């Protein structure tokens, strides 16, 4: 199955220059993400987390600095990354193709890349959906299933490409608390089985500490790394963990760091971007 890739972000900067007024979204941000690490990035709204994710995904070029994947240059201002199936994004609002059934969505990657025949891709999609508890809705269209199921299906679609890196941009933001716990469980199972490198953006600190091997707390814009929390809680994890003192103290530590930055952002008059 897929083996995670190591990501090294070195002094990455990004200036948005929509109408001459340069907005610095990322300021010499450096980050080392190990092979197969579950990295969660938290920070104030609009701090540039998504900018970094887009740069890794290959949707934006950098204004300065470099990003390496497994020691190879992935993106620099002169050589921007192109999107690739080794780094799959699960989007904030979901991007399952509405005109394809769920299994067609999941089989899309391997078929588009030509790595599998249609039959093989379908078989793979169905087993991926089964792992996500979605066997029964394989033939439905995304518009016919619940939002929680859609998010799981999208993760299954990403994993069908056996990516080195799974990039998730607040994937569970719109889910209710109960649906979220189910989604977490499935994501953890997939992670424990395949060990891709995960880059997961969220505002939900419980989610962050529960899922992560490492939490990066970002500063307010321009984004840099404020604090790194190593979460050494044993895997596989389940919800009993939430009551443990280790979890509680990590959660508190994380909260303090985030709160400090959020206050700074607030007094600087930042708004949700």
């Amino acid at each position, binding site marked *: 199955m897929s083996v995670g890739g190591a990501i090294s972000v070195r002094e990455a900067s990004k200036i948005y220059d929509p109408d001459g007024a340069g907005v610095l979204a990322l300021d010499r941000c450096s980050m080392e993400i190990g092979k197969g690490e579950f990295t969660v990035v938290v920070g104030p709204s609009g701090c540039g987390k998504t900018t970094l994710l887009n740069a890794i*995904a*290959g*949707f934006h070029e950098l204004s300065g600095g470099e990003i390496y994947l497994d020691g190879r240059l992935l993106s620099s201002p002169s050589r921007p990354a*192109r*999107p*690739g*199936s080794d*780094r*799959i*994004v699960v*989007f904030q*609002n979901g*991007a399952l*193709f*509405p*005109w*394809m059934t769920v299994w067609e969505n999941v089989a*899309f*990657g391997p078929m*588009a*890349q030509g790595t599998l025949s249609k039959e093989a891709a379908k078989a793979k999609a169905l087993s991926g959906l089964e792992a996500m508890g979605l066997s029964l809705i394989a033939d439905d*269209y*995304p*518009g*016919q299933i619940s939002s929680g199921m859609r998010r799981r299906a999208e993760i299954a*679609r990403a994993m069908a*490409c056996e990516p080195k890196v799974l990039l998730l941009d607040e994937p569970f933001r719109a889910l209710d608390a109960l649906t979220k716990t189910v989604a977490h469980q499935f994501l953890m199972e997939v992670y424990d089985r395949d060990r891709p490198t995960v880059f997961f953006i969220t505002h939900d600190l419980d989610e962050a500490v529960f899922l992560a091997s490492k939490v990066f707390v970002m500063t307010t814009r321009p984004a840099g790394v404020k604090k790194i929390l190593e979460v050494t809680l044993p895997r596989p994890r389940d919800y009993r963990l939430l009551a443990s003192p280790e979890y509680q103290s990590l959660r508190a530590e994380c909260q303090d760091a985030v709160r400090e930055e959020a206050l700074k952002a607030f007094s600087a008059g930042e708004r949700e971007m």
Partner: protein
Amino acid sequence: MIGAMSLKKRLAKLAASRSLRRGLISVALFFVLWELSARLKIPVVGAIPAPTEVLACLGRELVSAYYWRSWGVSLARILAGFAIAQVLGVPLGLLLGFSRKAREIIFPIIEIMRPVPPLAWVPVSVIFWPSAEMSMIFVTFLGAFFTVVLNIVEGVAAIDVRFLRAAASLGSSRRDVFWRIMLPASLPSVLVGMTVGMGVTWCVVVAAEMIATNTGLGFMTWRGYVAGEFPMIVVGMLSIGLAGYLSSGLIRRIGLHFTPWLKGQ
């Protein structure tokens, strides 16, 4: 529990039948008022032939070859004009939607032509085309063409960038992006363009038939006026309305068949 359920059901049924009854009463009242105003020769509205006369006229027409020939002629014009509009309009719309360069070159011309109502083209197309039939089809074509093109351009422009990014990320080629992402993503607006275009086509063909030819449902209605057969006018109007309704419904049906993911949404 069972009692409560059946009570609820019965209430729902009653509400449904009540709204049905209201509808029926309203329609019946409409016809009674119409009949009365015709019989009593009430000014303005009284000039319209009474429903009973219209029904009698309709009965005669339903067995007349002329009536059905008028349907056939108008339908043939609609189909020809509409089909040509699709054959030319769908690819052009897609091209304009996908290529910025094409948009910059071709769009200004479309913007000049578009505000001219299709019927304003009637005199010029009668001069232009060798037969009345061709000019009729041409005007019909114009009616649908711009609607189709503009809807597609808008549909393509509205494709969510997330889908394109997701497709790129999943490793699709440019060809795949076109055929498997952009085309299906813009299909719903293609179909909206077709449905609206079909409606416009009927408006156009009826008016054009009144002006420039002596066949078809439009002319049949006009002839009713010229010949003083007033019930015939109403029969013509109803027939045109029904024809437009049926053809738009047909397009929607065909459209749903090609966009199964929109069912039940």
